[in-house]
């Protein structure tokens, strides 16, 4: 979604990240619902992960705000590279 927003939506890298995060909420909710219905959720692990994540998120937001546009874009590109390598190598 982030590249779609920067390439076609004309958003800056920072706004693309923030906007994509907002879009993810309902998408994840619908998908999580399907998995929960199929009993494919470990609620204890989810709670523990979420506990840490809600503390990490404000920190991540601050780091993002402090990063320059180019630096953020480069880091995001590297993240995408890691994901693509993970997909191609398995």
């Amino acid at each position: 979604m982030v590249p779609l927003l920067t390439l076609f939506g004309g958003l800056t890298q920072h706004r693309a990240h923030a906007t994509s995060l907002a879009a993810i909420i309902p998408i994840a909710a619908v998908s999580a619902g399907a998995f929960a219905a199929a009993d494919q959720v470990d609620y204890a692990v989810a709670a523990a992960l979420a506990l840490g994540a809600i503390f990490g998120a404000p920190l991540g937001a601050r780091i993002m705000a402090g990063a320059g546009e180019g630096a953020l874009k480069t880091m995001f590109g590297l993240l995408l590279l890691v994901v693509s390598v993970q997909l191609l190598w398995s």
Partner: protein
Amino acid sequence: MSVLLLLGIAAAGILVGVTSAMFGVGGGIIMVPFMVLALDKTQHIAEGTSLLVIIPTAIVGVIFHRRRNLVDFPHAAAMAAGGTFGAYAGAAAALRLDGETLQVIFGGFLAVIALRTVRDGIRDMRSGSKSGSAT
């Protein structure tokens, strides 16, 4: 599960939250391998669990991004509408292709986008522009 294990998982969760808010992603990229490799969960349970975690994680991230006026809600709504529709359509299409083919196609496509993004990002850093280009 032991309290120590739960605390360890919460610690991993911190990294998930940082990544999610910083990059506008769900964090599944960290959570799914973590649950499969470190916690020995099945792929399906790892995916389902990570999707559930993404909800509060993304909500908190958006709250903090919103305070800095960074969230474009009209664009987010459009992407969310397309995304939920796409999830159904994509699942139907995916079931017709074998998993390996899908991974290679998507992985290759993503690699191209990744390299282009890194290239543009480095170019932006070199030019020293703060607002950056829209690509």
